[in-house]
């Protein structure tokens, strides 16, 4: 998790979610400003551990993995497992859901590789070309 810099006053972490609520007239992003809070019950890390995949797997990989689990472990016999797998597959299988988790939590996605000082220096040239 990337630490936030120390700020003198409490930073107003207000966010419009990336997913519109079903009863809202708005269809893409949310219309209510909410205080950013991590949803602790299911984080991308927990979801990935439960499905035994990488947090940043592609959508198609997650969907395939979930299908395999469904075939191998029918939901009527492995109900407890599926209570975990269903929401995990939903969170990681849709990039907008996964990104929304970070965004709504006020956290920076820990995706690697990421832009840093060295990469930025290296890329300055290409901008000038």
């Amino acid at each position, binding site marked *: 998790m990337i630490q936030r810099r120390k700020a003198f006053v409490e930073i107003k972490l207000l966010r*419009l979610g990336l997913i519109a609520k079903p*009863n809202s007239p708005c269809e893409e992003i949310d219309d209510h400003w909410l205080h950013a809070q991590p949803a602790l019950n299911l984080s991308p890390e927990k979801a990935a551990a439960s499905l035994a995949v990488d947090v940043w797997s592609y959508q*198609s990989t997650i969907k395939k993995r979930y299908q395999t689990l469904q075939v191998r472990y029918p939901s009527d016999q492995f109900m407890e497992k599926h209570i975990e797998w269903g929401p995990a597959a939903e969170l990681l299988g849709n990039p907008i859901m*996964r990104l929304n988790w970070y965004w709504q939590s006020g956290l920076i996605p820990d995706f690697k590789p990421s832009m840093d000082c060295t990469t930025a*220096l290296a*890329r300055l*040239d290409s901008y000038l070309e």
Partner: protein
Amino acid sequence: MSDLILKKITRLFKERWSSFEEILLLPSHDKDFHLFLNSYCGVDLAASSPAISHLSSRGLTLSSRGLTAGSTKFTQLLKNHFESLFAESQLLTLESTEIEKILFEFEKNINLILYYWFGLDDKNYQFRTCIHFLKLSQFQVELFQKKSVAFCLFLSANGIGFTSHDKQHIPNTRPSSKLYQLKILASESDVISEIRCVQREICLLIEEWEYLNSIYAIEFRSGKNPFAKRNQLAIWILESFCDFQKWISELNKQHDSQDVKSEYEALAALVLSATQKILLPASISRICYPQDVIVLLEKFAKNRLEYMPHDYSTKLMLQATQSAQGSDFASQLLDILNLKPHEWKLSFDPNNIIKSFSWSYSSKHHLLLCALTGICYFKKTAPKKLDPFFLSEISYSVQSKDSFAFDGGNHKIHDNPCSLSCEQTQIIFSTLIDYLENNLNYIEGVQEQIEFLKQIFKVRKGDS
């Protein structure tokens, strides 16, 4: 010629990065630095004010001192560093106007790199930390003269600048979007990787926005005026958002893969939500943003319409930004009255943008924008009744126009032309009134708002 010299300076800057970084790390050799860093939270502790005076209880020295040996060494080394870059790239052979242009561009490059730099693996150790530790805010020293024009090195918490005259200079930074290379990538995995980097970058930019806004809030409380810095910050971030939106619009069509498309969708939602965040000082705190911000939001709306041509919320955003620049009201916006709800999108709540710039355009444009937004809410919700929250949103929007605090800046208020006919305006207002009368639950408290809105839009029925 000047392009070549800019490239040469930038190349030299890059080659000598490690010696430059050593200068940035100089403060860390001071025995007091670690105590300072532990308590550092982005503000200039030396600038004593009632708002931050309780800091002394944390054991920090607030005494103002002149340039210490450490500060003198820091500035001398920086000065030498840049002097040698400029000498070796033959910058001084150019005319002073050319030199000014090159330094302006070079300054942007340096500050973009500084944006990503932090020392000792500690995110609290940034360039601004050096400036505050060494008490070098607004420091200026002459580098060279060209035909009686003195070019100075300028240091502030916001970065490094080069200026020939401006004592209130706010260092410029190149938009971070310029470092991203979505265009030239061929493989699917590279594209996804780059999109995710951009997603991360947007979260970082908003983090920077929040962090600096908290600092500006402190400065404001200490009697300073940080609006110019915040405006510049908003412009810097929005420039990147416009670039990112343009890429989404141009490139998402070029990929058939669902994996890529879904990442683009997530990116589009993120950049949209992040843009709304930049509007908060205007929509909530009623700050008048300058023209440059309005122009960038117009560009953003245009870029987004290429991605989602039927998005009516973006169309209202475009109209609001164009009204804010004195334009006429686009009659095509009336098409909404005859369209079925599935024939258009309402991606986001247009209220933020309408509230933000309502000070800048005519009352008539404002009421038209508010009425059309209200109609959108009702049309998308029908046959269900509208949540009273959205009714309040319409009321707040209508009243927002008179609630702005003008900060003495040069804010042009337009008397916009409006070529909609009297009948067209009446149709819009009466459609909204019909909805207000028929598609709302008459619960307590709501009735008052309905009456207020009916009054506002009825009175204007006779307007031309």
